[in-house]
């Protein structure tokens, strides 16, 4: 059993970790709500399109031609990545940027994987969803903003742990799920805060902690680059940068042959942050539900086209990759997305009611509250 002092300390932790982070967590929950349906909203607004139906067409376009066509659209830019999407097997996506290491892409094209036809240009850095995403991701401030939001996620975890500890003493006289509508508005909202908070606890904890891991994506990939990739490509150190690259189509074919039962997720072109100045790196995903979330890199010499090395990702990159679906809720169909949205709305109510309770009773010590609540709870 917790002593009165212990309860007071845990309550203090709950109050302050929540108060400091609530505004940001509310922003994250509200912007996160439309982001759950990013894919569907993009299609509904015409930001993304589906490849046309071409019955009977089984040809495969050569990726070299698609890359050349994308390059021709923006001759001053460079191709940075080519992507595949398991949901759109008939499409290739090509991104370009002003320089290989530019943090932002300059264009994102969609090509038909059967005919090589240009299909669509995705509008970058504009629109409602992009605004929601940037607020949610870094509040338009780059890596510092992302890391700051990660810190807010850590405060959420501390708030959930301390909130759970004080849930016990608050509920000792009440059956689970009690909501005292007949009492004052504050007591009713305290009961709702407790009920909704404890019911969504595990989901909030998982989404919060995986969100924190996601904020570390750039440092995590940087670490992988500096350790694993550097050791795989040590003999290329000091060589001059390449002027021309070997065939990307061949590079993808080599990567597919290297990792059996896997398909391409995306391939980074030489010089980008995901590759090296002298290599393509093709990132392959597996075919089972779990391995489809993981990536195996294949390094390909961008001069000779030969496979150099392929090692499975270290644990910290795997942790990042698995934490992405657990944060996004995009791994169990539309029903899971709707549940994700409902749980998110419940989380917004928990946050809002927490602020309301603090405003209402910020001067009443927790002991008085517990004593008073115990008396009130005992009445039928």
């Amino acid at each position, binding site marked *: 059993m917790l002593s009165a002092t212990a309860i007071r300390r845990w309550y203090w932790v709950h109050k302050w970790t929540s108060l400091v982070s609530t505004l940001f967590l509310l922003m994250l929950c509200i912007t996160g709500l439309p982001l759950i349906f990013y894919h569907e909203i993009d299609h509904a607004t015409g930001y993304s399109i589906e490849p046309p139906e071409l019955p009977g067409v089984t040809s495969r376009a050569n990726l070299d031609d698609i890359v050349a066509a994308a390059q021709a659209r923006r001759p001053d830019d460079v191709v940075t990545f080519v992507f595949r999407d398991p949901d759109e097997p008939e499409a290739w996506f090509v991104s370009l940027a002003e320089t290989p290491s530019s943090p932002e892409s300059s264009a994102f094209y969609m090509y038909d994987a059967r005919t090589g036809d240009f299909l669509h240009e995705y509008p970058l850095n504009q629109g409602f969803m992009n605004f929601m995403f940037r607020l949610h991701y870094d509040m338009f401030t780059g890596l510092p903003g992302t890391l700051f939001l990660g810190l807010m996620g850590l405060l959420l975890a501390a708030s959930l742990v301390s909130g759970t500890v004080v849930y016990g003493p608050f509920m000792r006289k009440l059956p689970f799920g009690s*909501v005292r509508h007949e009492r004052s508005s504050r007591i009713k909202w305290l009961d709702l805060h407790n009920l909704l908070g404890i019911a969504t*606890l595990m989901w909030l904890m998982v989404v919060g902690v995986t969100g924190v891991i996601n904020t570390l994506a750039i440092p995590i990939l940087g670490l992988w680059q500096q350790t694993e990739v550097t050791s795989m490509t040590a003999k290329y150190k000091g060589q001059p940068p390449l002027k021309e690259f070997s065939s990307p189509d061949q590079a993808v074919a080599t990567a597919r042959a290297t990792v059996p039962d896997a398909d391409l997720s995306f391939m980074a072109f030489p010089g980008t942050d995901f590759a090296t100045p002298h290599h393509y790196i093709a990132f392959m995903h597996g075919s089972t539900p779990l391995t489809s979330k993981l990536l195996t890199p294949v390094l390909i010499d961008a001069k000779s086209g030969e496979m150099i090395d392929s090692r499975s990702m270290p644990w910290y990159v795997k942790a990042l990759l698995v934490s992405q679906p657990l944060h996004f809720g995009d791994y169990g169909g539309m*029903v899971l997305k709707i549940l994700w949205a409902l749980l998110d709305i419940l989380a917004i109510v928990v946050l809002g009611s927490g602020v309301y309770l603090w405003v209402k009773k910020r001067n009443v010590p927790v002991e008085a509250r517990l004593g008073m609540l115990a008396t009130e709870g005992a009445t039928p």
Partner: protein
Amino acid sequence: MSAKRQIRVWTAPIILGVLTSVGLISALVSDDAGDVLAWLTLAAPVAVCCWYAPRRQRSES
């Protein structure tokens, strides 16, 4: 708090936590059956909130 009371307070939260965890993991490791299991188990916390939130308190036992 007595052991009996502890059990009464924590039974429902523990069940909900376990159901949520099962759902979050099942959709990750299995596609069809795992997805359905995730829908059922993750609906549990939502259903509990919708069931209890609008209800007046039952008389204290």
